[in-house]
Structures are given as C-alpha cells and as structure tokens.
C-alpha cells in the first residue's frame, strides 16, 4: 500500500473471527466424564483436515479449543470428543439435541497424511489424545491401499477411561492393523495390558526406517515416548506430534499459545518433532 491509497479490509472467511451457531445433532457418552458431540457444520464453514481444531463457544459462558474427532470425509457435520472438566466443557456435554453452540474454525495444521503414504504408520495416543487422532485413522482406513501397516498404541488411566472401545476392537480385527491398549491401573475384569504406553513398544514389529509416527496426548507422555522411539532407531524427522497449548484467539493474534517462535494455534497444533524439540523440556514454556 502506498501513501494516500485507501486501506482495504479483507473479510475473513465465515466462522473464523466470529462463531457461527450450529445445532447439536447428538451427544453420546464415551466414559464417565467424556462425551462425543455431533454438530451440524454451519453453512459456508470450510471442511477440516485430520488434526485440526475448532473453537467451540457456549454463548454467555466461554470459548475453548476442541480437536475435531470425526471423519473428515463426512461432510455436513463436525464431531468433537469433550472431557467435562470446567464450566464450558460441562455446558457443552450437557447440550441437548437441537440446542446450539458457536463454532469457529477449522484452525491449525494437520497430521501429515501425505508424508505417511507408502509407509507404516504408528499412532501413539494417551487419554483424550485419541480423539484428535481418530480423523487420521478414518483417513487411513478409507485410503487403506496408500499406507502400509497401521499400529495404534493407546494408553488410558483405567479401563473406565478407555475411549471408543467398540471402534478399537473393530480396528484390531482389520488386516494389517494392530491395536494395543494399556491402562495405568486395572481391576480383575481388565484382561488387557497394564503399564504406561511406552511398555507397548516391545510388542510392535515395525521397521523404524519405514515408519512415520504420530503422537497425541499429554506432553510428558509424548516426551517419554519420543525418547524411547529414538533409542529404538526411529527417525526424529518422521515423528509428528500435537502441541495443544493455551489457545485463545486461534488465529495467532493474542500470543497466549506462543511456543518459542511458533504460535501453537496457527503454526501448530501439529508439528514435526525437530521443530519443537528445543522447547519441549523448557519449564518456562
């Protein structure tokens, strides 16, 4: 722009700067505190890629970033898996069918599905971190011929905290697909593994050089998991993870989610590990 030239306002696409109202289609209980909401996709809102998130707004209460957990190739609706831990999430999970909430988005970077093509894909999820990985799983299963072996390792706190139980069991029956679930503590009725998610690494048979790894879960879990993976010969450059920090504006304006030179909301949440490696151990960040 030169001196004297009038400023031009560029309109943001619908649903980026202001929330668009959307109806709740269904609310399904996953665990004692976690629910999956299917919502209509507001008209004009762009489709999403696996790994992206929305800002969900309960009018008069507040707004939160929530990862999209549904099928990216199922147009017309958006799915979110939400753990009820505060006022906004409580209001979201207690919505009734036909009630509405506001949606902004979709925002952020996505899982590297193109880079995973032709390779084995190792997905490592912890707790609610399985939700942002589910769209990637749907994508891989829909385009199965493009990917080699799929291994899903999932760690949860206890058997009652395991998400998507039926889907995990169904995926494990698919050819070239292995699903292993472990819990930190189990009762006598739990017949699966007990121990942290890294204890499952010994059961996977994947050639590190031919494997792309995607992680989502508590940061400390990802840190330990990556340490183990690299010790086993996995290439750091073939590891991607989701860094979900304190996203507020979701468009890189407010700076709340700054991570070194990056804003997690717009440069992430999905990062290639070497990008964020220097910042993962810093207490101040």
């Amino acid at each position, binding site marked *: 722009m030169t001196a004297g030239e009038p400023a031009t306002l560029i309109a943001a696409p619908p649903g980026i700067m202001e929330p668009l109202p959307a109806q709740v289609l269904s609310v399904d209980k996953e665990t004692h505190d976690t629910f999956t909401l299917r919502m209509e996709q507001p008209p004009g809102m762009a489709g999403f890629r696996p790994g992206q998130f929305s800002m969900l707004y309960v009018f008069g209460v507040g707004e939160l970033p929530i990862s999209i957990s549904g099928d990216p190739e199922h147009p017309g609706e958006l799915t979110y898996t939400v753990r009820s831990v505060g006022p906004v999430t409580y209001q979201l999970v207690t919505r009734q069918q036909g009630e509405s909430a506001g949606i902004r988005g979709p925002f952020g970077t996505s899982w590297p599905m193109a880079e995973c093509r032709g390779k084995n894909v190792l997905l490592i999820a912890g*707790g609610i971190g399985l939700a942002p990985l589910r769209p990637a799983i749907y994508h891989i299963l829909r385009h199965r011929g493009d990917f080699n072996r799929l291994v899903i390792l999932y760690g949860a*706190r206890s058997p009652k905290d395991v998400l998507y139980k039926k889907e995990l069991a169904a995926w494990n029956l698919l050819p070239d697909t292995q699903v292993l679930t472990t819990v930190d*503590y189990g009762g*006598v009725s739990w017949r*699966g*593994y*007990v*121990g942290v998610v890294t204890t499952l690494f010994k059961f996977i048979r994947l050639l590190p050089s031919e494997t792309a790894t995607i992680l989502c879960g508590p940061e*400390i*879990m990802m840190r330990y998991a990556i340490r183990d993976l690299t010790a086993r010969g996995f290439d750091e450059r073939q590891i991607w993870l989701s860094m979900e920090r304190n996203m507020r504006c979701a468009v890189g304006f407010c700076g709340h989610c700054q991570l070194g030179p990056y804003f997690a909301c717009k440069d992430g949440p999905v990062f290639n590990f070497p990008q964020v490696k220097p910042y993962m151990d810093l207490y101040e960040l």
Partner: protein
Amino acid sequence: MIPAGVRTSLAKHPFLEGIPEPLLDKLMGMAFEVTFEPDQVIFREADPSSFFYLILSGTISVEIAMPGRVLRIQTVGEGEELGWSSIMEKVNKQFQARSLSAVKAVAFDGVRLKAECERDTDFGYFVMCRILEVVAERLRATRFQMLDVYSSRGGAA
C-alpha cells in the same frame, strides 16, 4: 532338563541377548520349563521369594490384593521377566502374580542362581547387570505411572 527347542527360544530371550555360550550352558543347567493355565495364581504377596522366570509366551499380571479388591498394576509378557526379587535374600514377594492367558516360561531357583552368581563372578556380573536393567526399567515405568498423566490435571500431580 531343558529340551533343545526351549534352549533355542531362551537364547533369543531379550534378557539373555548376547550371552556367551558357556554362561548360557551354565544357566541351562539350572533352568526348568513351566506352564501356567489362564487365571492361575503364580505366587502371592509375602510368599517366600523362590523363582525367577523368563517368559516365553503368554501374559501375566502383577497385582496388589486388598480385601474385596484386586488392583492390576502391571502386565508382563513374552520376552519379559517375572520375580527378579527372588535373587535377593530375605525378600518375600512384594506382589501377587497371576497368568492372564496360558503361559510358557523358564524358571530358575533364585537361591541357586544367586549362589552361582557369587561362585562364578563373570556369570554373576552378567546376570546382575541384566537384573539391574529390568529393575531400572520397572522403576522408570513406575515413576511415569505415578505422574498420572491422563488425569484432568494432566500430570500436574
């Protein structure tokens, strides 16, 4: 007496990876094969420490039994070890172990194994280094477990 097939499987067990042949021969002389049916209690808490197991197949849960409640705190399976404390004197079993599936393992008498470690220090050094790796790995996993990273506080405990 250990059959030749079991010896081959045992030589591939991660605990014995890289073991010199004479040390493997010595271990073989102390080993015997065991199997457990699903849901069989292998040992109970406070039992005198007796056997050290290298698991060849199947899954075993390590449990804490309380009145009316059993808490599973760890599972161990193929390629792992059970009962490392049997190599220490005056230590009774700290936990209960139960097979979750049919289990095949090779067992060693802890007292005899320790005595041989003291008599043949090359053998003893090898065994103790491997035991230390097992203990270190279990300690690391326990610390990680204690963080309770999946709680709503997200490891902030």
